[in-house]
């Protein structure tokens, strides 16, 4: 079946925007800040070219390129999430190691949950067992990665950690693409071939949305903060400090 014009536009918009993101990262000298995310972006741009060429060769070639790339993509996404964990905790020397501990704990927890999900989600014997196994794997890995990313966002909110602009955009984009792909994979696993159309639409839509977010955060510059103090009462602060000194001298 030939793709519609809108599908082709969606398909093209992803790699085009990702090229913009990759160039913006180099142009703004952020390559050293997010090297894994840049590799992830570059991989997707290169994959678009390879997939296009593979689709012209044969369906079989395209099939292996697509699923082989999906597996590499799952690993790269996890590495990007690890990079985000490192970034979020890096400015805070006292709790830097907490980031690593959190990442490992969240990963362990989500591995157990994903295995459970993959086990109970297994259906009856299928006429296309390889595709079904791959879709089931994709769904479980996406849920696993969403969980790990959620733990990162939650930890930052609880501790009051403020994200830097680009890592925040990357995290939001990764979250959006993972959610869209998880929904697509879950519906495809449930509906079988009847869900193909949904999958064909949802996957590139979530990717285009995510790359849009990345492009926005990579290109736009943070609004400058107004470094003037808006009237925090100095007498109030002095009063608090005096009372605290009194308390500490008593204890």
């Amino acid at each position, binding site marked *: 079946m030939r793709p519609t014009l809108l599908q082709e536009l969606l398909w093209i918009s992803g790699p085009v925007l990702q090229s913009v993101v990759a160039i913006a990262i180099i142009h703004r000298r952020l390559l050293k800040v997010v090297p894994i995310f840049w590799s992830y972006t570059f991989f997707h741009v290169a994959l678009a070219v390879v997939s296009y060429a593979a689709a012209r060769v044969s369906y079989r070639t395209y099939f292996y390129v697509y699923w082989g790339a999906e597996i590499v993509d799952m690993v790269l996404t996890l590495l990007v999430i690890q990079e985000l964990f490192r970034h979020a905790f890096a400015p805070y020397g006292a709790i830097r190691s907490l980031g690593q501990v959190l990442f490992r704990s969240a990963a362990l927890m989500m591995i157990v949950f994903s295995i459970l999900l993959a086990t109970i989600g297994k259906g009856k014997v299928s006429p296309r067992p390889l595709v079904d196994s791959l879709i089931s794997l994709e769904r479980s890995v996406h849920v696993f990665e969403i969980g790990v990313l959620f733990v990162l966002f939650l930890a930052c909110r609880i501790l*009051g950690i403020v994200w830097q602009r680009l890592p925040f955009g990357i995290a939001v984009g990764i979250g959006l693409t993972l959610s869209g792909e998880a929904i697509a994979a879950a519906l495809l696993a449930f509906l079988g071939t009847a869900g193909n159309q949904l999958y064909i639409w949802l996957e590139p839509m979530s990717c285009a949305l995510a790359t849009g977010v990345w492009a926005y955060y990579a290109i736009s510059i943070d609004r400058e903060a107004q470094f003037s103090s808006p009237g925090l009462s100095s007498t109030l602060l002095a009063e608090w400090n005096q009372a605290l000194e009194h308390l500490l001298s008593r204890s």
Partner: protein
Amino acid sequence: MEPGTGALAVKIMTTLLVVLLALAFILFLTSLMRLRRVERDLVGLYNKLQPVHLPALLNLLNPEDLSFLRANLRKPDFVQVKRQRTRALIDYVRRIALNAKVLTSLGELYRYSPLPDVAAAGQLLVSRALMTRILALRTLLCLQIELVLPLFDTNLVSTIKAYEAARTRLEGISSTSLVLH
């Protein structure tokens, strides 16, 4: 039940679970994007600081008062009074925790100031506020335990000390940035 009906139910539930989790996560992400905009607004952040009435907190923490009550009240009455005191302390520590979170955001904004002094002070404020936040959260947990087990005692001094250090740092930045502008 027809054979395979159970498997189908499990399949439906798994699909629903994944779809709902993913949708909830998308909603969570959009709310974070909205919240981030608020966290970058300096005036809004200052307005979010909540007053902590320290003289009243000092009264609550007076160890002599507590010893007096323990010696003179019947155990059930003392437990009741202690629970009321713990509830009030929870309110104070919650405010301290919230203020520490706001101070972290403020410090983060000052950290990117073009003025080196302000940027350095911002970095210090971030570290202190973050430590205060962690201590306040730990104290909150201890106070919740104290609410259930009133004979358990929570030490608030380290939290208040950290809070004081963070606030003093903010006062320092406020005056520096006002002088420099």
